[in-house]
């Protein structure tokens, strides 16, 4: 870490042939005109409609049934469209949205504490470090209030006060209490609301479920997205489905890092295959690392578990002052402890934002001051607040979290400090979409975490659920209808040539995976890829490290295709084959993730470039050169992608440098 040197302005265009610059970008965000608060209303009015009697003639393919997918399928089904819903799980209710704990933001201002649509808009833009579109974010803030109404009507049991009104709490990055929650299971309850609404449509015949299907290709006919090719994960059959529009709601790419807080089946495959068919990938280097996760305990680890950020309200973070101090925590005297966040950030202390807390944890561990068996952890100590407030108060606040921690680690956090370490948690980047959530392929819409649109370079807590549901319940139903009403969409059959050709590509890749018959498992190679990404494209990134990562990724990809072993046959359930296919895609995707991080020679949000920091070692944005969305066009595996830029303009929220000192 080069903390000592300040950064002068860097030229934004670099020479190497690692990528190519688009001469004149054809990115058209299609933002509505007019004042910010009228843009969405104008767009809704300008949109073309489809009469109720005609809707069932339009088939909409929805891939993924998390918050975005289930809500879109339900809303489109309610309007009468013929919806086909595809998902990899046995039930649509298992999507990873279910694991979100904290809550969902909405500008209801039920607290009378100064909240408003404009304030939520402003907080989200600022929290995203000025790398998101104003018009999108404002619409998100507007729709937030409708989401809460809709969910309550569905029977979502949000927390309430004794008087029967909805309860809210505060969350990082905001000074108002606007976060609605259902215990620590907000994601679960919101997903069940959307799932149940979708199941109602299944009963009514508008939505058809296709469980245990994995999308392995997008079918583009005459430049329009017209269908998908999936593998039936039980029979192994390659199936082709045609429709008039395709909605990708397939989540983020955090598991590229192998260890993350994401579910182990979360993957980038559907989005990546769409990218290979022409959908641009935007800002992939904007990844979010959560500071309070249970650290890695060994090579066997399959995933990381998040501990709610709220713990930082009562816990103090520290490491020993001396590198290599292996004494147990209770033998390290007060004077030999370094409460580094309190020392460096006296006004915010342990409550600095996620990215700052994460980066500082890495820094002290890099100095050899990390704790625990691996040396890759810091202490989160509740001792002071347990003596001040009593064990019962702490138990009432965090009892379930303490239990979970003890179950996983075998240690009692009431008597010994927790060990925590940052982990990949969410990805702000995703497929590029315009204001209507349509990708660069007409007819391919991308919703939820799978798109890049609303969180800029950093997502605020409790905003992911809000975005998934806004996209699905309230935006896609309008913009997909407009597309279906405006586009010329001749009938296509799933037996047509483009479908057969795509299915042949899918089949060839499966045959190739089974045919290597090597000696290394996909898990081993994925674990190595994860280590490369975590070390060089993780919390802190440098020119040299990123270039090294590019070399290592391409070597790993070559090794994978020479040495991977996938036993079993393709014609029944074969979980090894499913997983190997996802790893193969990550080995391609990792390259554009790294290139994006390499090209963005500024620090912003979750993206920290060592070359771009203030004299105090804080992230330094470079607005003059990087106030744009980077959208990458695929040109071939290992071939230089083409960089397209969508300039961002800030008419209302003016960029400022964040400070938490």
């Amino acid at each position, binding site marked *: 870490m080069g903390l000592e040197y300040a950064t002068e302005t860097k030229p934004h265009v670099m020479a190497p042939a690692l990528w190519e610059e688009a001469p004149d970008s054809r990115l058209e965000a299609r933002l509505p005109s007019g004042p910010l608060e009228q843009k969405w209303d104008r767009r809704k009015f300008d949109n073309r409609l489809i009469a109720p009697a005609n809707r069932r003639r339009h088939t909409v393919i929805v891939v993924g049934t998390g918050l975005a997918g289930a809500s879109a399928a339900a809303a489109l089904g309610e309007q009468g469209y013929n919806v086909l819903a595809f998902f990899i799980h046995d039930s649509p209710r298992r999507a990873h949205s279910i694991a979100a704990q904290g809550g969902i933001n909405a500008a209801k201002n039920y607290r009378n504490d100064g909240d408003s649509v404009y304030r939520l808009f402003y907080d989200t833009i600022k929290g995203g470090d000025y790398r998101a579109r104003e018009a999108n974010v404002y619409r998100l803030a507007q729709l937030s209030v409708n989401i809460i*109404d809709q969910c309550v009507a569905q029977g979502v049991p949000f927390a309430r006060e004794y008087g029967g009104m909805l309860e809210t709490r505060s969350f990082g990055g905001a000074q108002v209490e606007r976060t609605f929650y259902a215990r620590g299971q907000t994601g679960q309850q919101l997903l069940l609301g959307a799932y149940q609404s979708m199941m109602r449509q299944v009963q009514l015949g508008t939505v058809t479920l296709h469980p245990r299907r994995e999308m392995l290709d997008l079918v583009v006919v005459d430049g329009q997205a017209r269908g998908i090719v999936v593998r039936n994960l039980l029979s192994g059959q390659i199936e082709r489905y045609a429709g008039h529009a395709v909605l990708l709601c397939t989540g983020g790419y955090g598991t590229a890092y192998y260890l993350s807080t994401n*579910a182990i089946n979360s993957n980038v495959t559907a989005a990546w295959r769409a990218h290979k068919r022409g959908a641009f990938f935007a800002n992939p280097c904007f990844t979010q690392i959560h500071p309070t996760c249970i650290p890695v305990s060994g090579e066997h680890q399959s995933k990381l578990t*998040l501990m709610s950020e709220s713990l930082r309200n009562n816990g103090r973070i520290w490491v020993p002052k001396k590198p290599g101090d292996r004494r147990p925590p209770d033998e390290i005297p007060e004077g030999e402890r370094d409460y580094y966040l309190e020392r460096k950030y006296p006004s915010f202390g342990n409550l600095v934002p996620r990215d700052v807390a994460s980066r500082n944890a890495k820094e002290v561990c890099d100095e050899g001051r990390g704790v625990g068996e691996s040396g890759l952890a810091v202490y989160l100590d509740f001792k002071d607040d347990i003596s001040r407030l009593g064990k019962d108060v702490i138990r009432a606040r965090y009892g379930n979290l303490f239990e979970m921690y003890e179950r996983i680690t075998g240690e009692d956090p009431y008597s010994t400090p927790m060990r925590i370490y940052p982990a990949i948690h969410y990805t702000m980047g995703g497929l590029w979409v315009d204001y209507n959530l349509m990708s660069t392929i007409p007819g391919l819409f991308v919703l939820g975490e799978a798109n890049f649109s609303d969180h800029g370079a950093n997502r605020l807590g409790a905003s992911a659920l809000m975005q998934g549901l806004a996209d699905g319940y309230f935006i896609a139903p309008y913009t997909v209808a407009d597309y279906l009403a405006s586009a010329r969409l001749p009938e296509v059959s799933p037996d047509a040539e483009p479908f057969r050709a795509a299915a042949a590509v899918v089949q060839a890749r499966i045959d190739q995976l089974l045919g290597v018959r090597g000696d290394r498992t996909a898990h081993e190679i994925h674990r190595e890829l994860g280590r490369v990404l975590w070390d060089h494209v993780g919390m802190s990134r440098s020119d040299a490290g990123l270039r090294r990562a590019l070399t290592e990724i391409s070597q790993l990809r070559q090794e994978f295709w020479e040495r991977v072993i996938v036993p079993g046959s393709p014609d029944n359930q074969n979980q090894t084959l499913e997983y190997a296919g996802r790893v193969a895609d990550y080995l391609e995707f990792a390259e554009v993730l790294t290139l994006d991080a390499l090209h963005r020679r500024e620090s912003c949000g979750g993206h920290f470039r060592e070359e771009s920091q203030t004299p105090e070692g804080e992230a330094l944005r470079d607005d003059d050169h990087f106030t744009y969305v980077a959208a990458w066009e695929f040109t071939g595996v290992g071939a230089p992608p083409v960089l397209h830029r969508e300039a961002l303009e800030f008419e209302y929220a003016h960029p400022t440098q964040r400070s938490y000192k």
Partner: protein
Amino acid sequence: MVFDDRPNRTMTLHLLVWRQPNGQTHGKMVPYTAEGISPDMSFLEMLDVVNEGLIRKGEEPIAFDSDCREGICGSCALVVNGRAHGPDGGTTVCQLHMRRFQNGDTIAIEPWRARAFPVIKDLVVDRSAFDRIIAAGGYTSISVGGAPDANTTLIPKDTVEAAMDAAACIACGACVAQCKNASAALFTGAKISQLALLPQGAAERRRRALRMVRQMDAEGFGSCSWEGQCEAVCPKGIKITNIAKMVREYNRAATTGETS
């Protein structure tokens, strides 16, 4: 990276695992040895280790469902030594850790067994019957767009907490797996209770109870005989009072001439 540098504290375990190639063929218990198992591993990570060994030998690994691995998605579904989700109460098998076992233990691992949950492969079963029960009525018929302001209807805190207790169900199916009748009454009762407790669910409570119970019966789940095994293994602590509530809701609907 330095991991555990303490003396060898790994375990060797003897596994008996249900292997069944597909729903059309018979299955059997097959012995495996799990070596080098750290007490810090989760139960599923232990199976990952066994599977990695099988894959390296070119053999088909043991198929099992899992996803979030933090006890909320409801995917994982193993009977461990005769108990759904294993020996610890109030947890899914993905949150069971190997420190619960001793070096040299024998562990039997089976799938959920119920007529309504046919085995797909090894430890993977088909739980789509649960989705069909929800489709029969486990919702409020409120379409997007027409919802009134969320604070229009006040709901007492105790009521919403009780609804949340029922809503916490993760649809893993342990209740069915542990029940000698393979009854789905706890699962179905939890959803009927949640929506019957809330004013938003009141409009359809009778029709909902009738339709969900009839669908449950049509799927081939058995009847409830009040032994409470479901509650004992439920990872989310769903109470059998939800079954009583279901019976009451159903009887009220059936005796007041409600038709589904």
